[in-house]
Structures are given as C-alpha cells and as structure tokens.
C-alpha cells in the first residue's frame, strides 16, 4: 500500500446510521426544549415601532396569567391556520385595539381590517389597517399584544403602556429606514423587542418589500433563520428571544438576493403611560 494513500474504512451500517441519527435528534430535542416558567404574575410591556413620520403610536400589551411557556408551539416557518384560528385572533386583536382607542392616542375604535396574517402554530400575527391608522397584533394562547400607529398632526411620538402594570423589562425599539437611498428590495422595516408573560422576550419585524418579492427569510444574530409571511409588498415575522435580524434572503422571479439589515435603535420611552 502506498504510504500516503487513504486506508480503507468500512461504511457504517445503515442500522448504526439510523440509530445514531435518531439518538442525536432525540438528544438535542430534549436539550432544546424551552424552559418552563413557573411565574404566574405576568406583565405585558411593549414597544412602538413607528414607520414613517407624522404618526402617533400607542402600544398596549396584555398578557394572560398562569401559562408556563408563552411560546410553546412556535415555528420558524409559517404554518397553515387551523379552522377558526384566524377569525379568533382577529376578534382578540380588534377587541384589544378598541380598548386602547380614543384619547390622545388617536387610535380608532373600529374599522380594523387584517391586511396580512402570519400563523406559527398557535400564534397569529397580524397587520391591520383602519382609516388613518395601522396596527400590528400578536395573539397566542396566553396573550394578545397590539401596536397601533395613528396619523396625528405633524408630530412623531410613541407612548408605551403596560397592560398589567407588573414588573417587566424596558422594551427596546429599533427602526430600519432604507427607503430611497439604499438599494435593496426591503424599502423599510421596523424591529421591536418586547417581553411578555413571565419575562419571556420576543422580537417582531415588519416591513415593506418590492412588489416582485415572493419570499423573505430573515437571518438572525443567533444564526437561526426565520421565514416571514409575505403578501402584497408587506412582510411580517417574529420569534422568541432577543436575537435580531441581521440580513434577509429575498426570493423573486430573478432569483435570491441577500440584503443586509441595519436597524437604528431608538431609546424606549422613559415614562410609560399606564
């Protein structure tokens, strides 16, 4: 045998391959299982992401109590909603929006229509519109969170409201504005980092893309990928945790391109309005 020629090694048997593969998947699946929070007192905190100027935005977050893992069943790719899931989420969202309407917020009490719906297991994220206002909503088995943006005069401000007034982390809000000067199919996007029941954080991204874009997959800072729901030039995605979107892989008829995302952080409001 030639000294530097590779010595033959027998192929592992198919039994060995299947057994070790299944063992590996089971092993990491066990380690991957999200931790269960025993906290019962939940808080809702939120943040406002303002897209464009001259808007007043109000965020109201509500969290249910007694649910150990708020994000159980979440999926990195959108799923098909079960029967009645979307209608139920829409009812939850519009109810929350109605309760946060009026006053200086300028949020309309009614007239909301869902323009984009993203389903991930038992969770439904929505972008809604009403005359003069837009909103996002995330509804799950244990909480419903809404963010409303209402055009009002020439001012641009955001107001935070804690749904249950219990302790929660300060929200972080970051906005990406790429319109016009930057090249790339994503013309604008907003990223919000929020915390819901039991101090469990999640990150929400919404934005606008060129009309010919049919798919958006966000690459996160933790090396995970999350596929967004895309329709009519808008996209929305969210995921548990603090990881942020660092780039987007965009699919259109001409192929797949990658766009780097640079979010500009905004300071969270210092005096939340209850």
């Amino acid at each position, binding site marked *: 045998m030639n000294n530097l020629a590779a010595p033959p090694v027998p192929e592992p*048997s198919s*039994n060995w391959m299947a057994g070790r593969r299944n063992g*590996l*998947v089971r*092993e990491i699946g066990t380690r991957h299982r999200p931790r269960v929070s025993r906290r019962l007192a939940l808080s809702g905190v939120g943040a406002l992401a303002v897209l464009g100027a001259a808007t007043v935005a109000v965020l109201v977050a509500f969290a249910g109590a007694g649910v150990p893992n708020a994000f159980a069943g979440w999926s990195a790719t959108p799923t098909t909603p079960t029967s009645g899931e979307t209608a139920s989420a829409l009812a939850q969202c519009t109810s929350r929006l109605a309760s946060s309407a009026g006053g200086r917020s300028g949020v309309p009490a009614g007239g909301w229509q869902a323009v984009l719906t993203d389903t991930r297991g038992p969770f439904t994220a929505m972008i809604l519109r009403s005359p003069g206002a837009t909103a996002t909503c995330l509804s799950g088995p244990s909480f419903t969170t809404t963010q409303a943006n209402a055009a009002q005069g020439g001012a641009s401000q955001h107001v935070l409201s804690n749904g249950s007034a219990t302790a929660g982390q300060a929200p972080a809000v970051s906005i990406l504005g790429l319109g016009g000067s930057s090249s790339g199919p994503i013309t604008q996007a907003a990223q919000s980092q929020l915390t819901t029941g039991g101090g469990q954080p999640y990150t929400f991204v919404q934005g606008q893309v060129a009309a010919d874009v049919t798919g958006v997959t966000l690459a996160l800072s933790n*090396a995970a990928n999350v596929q967004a729901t895309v329709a009519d030039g808008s996209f929305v995605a969210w995921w548990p945790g603090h990881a942020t979107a660092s780039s987007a892989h965009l699919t259109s008829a001409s192929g797949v391109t990658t766009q780097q995302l640079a979010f500009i952080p905004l300071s969270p409001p210092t005096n939340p309005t209850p």
Partner: protein
Amino acid sequence: MQAYRDRDDGELWRAADTDPEAFGELFERHARAVFAFSARRTGDLALAEDLTSVVFLEAWRRRSSVQLQGTSALPWLLGTANNVARNQRRSLRRHRAALSRMSASVVSASGEEEAIARVDAQRALSVALREIERLPREQREAVTLVLWSGLSYEEAALALAVPVGTVRSRIARARTALEGSLAPQPAITKESS
C-alpha cells in the same frame, strides 16, 4: 425528507436552532465522512463510532457561536473531529451520558461476514497509521484531512485554523519525510481555486 434535502448545510445549521431534524439531516450527510476521518485518525473503529457522535453533539453545543464559511459544514466538522480525537478522553467524558443514551438507539445486526471485514479493516488501519506515526502530529493531521479525507488545502486550513500555506508546507514535509519508502503519489488532493 425532501424539504431538508433541498437546503444547503448553512440553512440546516441555522434551522437546527429550532428544528432538531435539520441537524439530523446534517448527520445523515456527513456522519460517514466524520466516521472515516475519526477511524483514520485514531485507528480504532469502535472508538471512531463514539467520536462521530461526540463531534455532532459538540457541533450542536457550539452551533450559535459558529458561522459556517462556504456551503459545506464538512471542513468545520472534520476540524472538530480532529480536536475531539486530540482530546478524546475529555470529549468522551463530557458526553458520556448522551453517548450511553444514543448507543441504546442502535440495533446491532452484524453477521459473521461483517465482523471479519471489520477485523480486516482494523488491521489495515493499524498498518497505515504505523507508517505515518513517525510524522509530527501537525503533519499527520494535515495528511489525514487532505490526503485521506479529500479536503482541499483551503478547507483543511479552515478545519485546522491555520493559513493555507501552512497546510501546503505540512503536506510537502510529510511527503518528503516519507519519500524513501514511497511509491509515486497519485494526484488525490482536491484544490479549490
């Protein structure tokens, strides 16, 4: 599963954070190469089986701190396999409980023929390893990655975390050191430009 087969290693690597089956597909793709490398690195087939599992457990443990370069995870996995083989006692100790559970998943169905083939392969491995044993460890590692596992010089550099020129010189020195007893070398290295 078709959905996984269409995705490159980088996509599977990132998806593994929330989808263990994506990591299972990575195992399916690269476990044979990792096993062959581990066997040639250690000269012990049984040990190589356990080290292969350890490599993937290590890869999963470190998945969030590793950004894959290129489209294949193999260079990084073989680099990990090299480190695991170098520190095999510590690596095996760290994953002992998991290995025990994973071994229980394997149904042994080897017959007499397979057992004989395994003994033959084990013997051939021992002979081959004896021949390169007199090389310094760095050269042996380079030979195992480039000449025995088919990595390009660039991929081996990635696996070993050294410059490409270092890999080239280690291979060249290994060839020179063994020159006296060598037959003419076939061109079996894969170079990527």
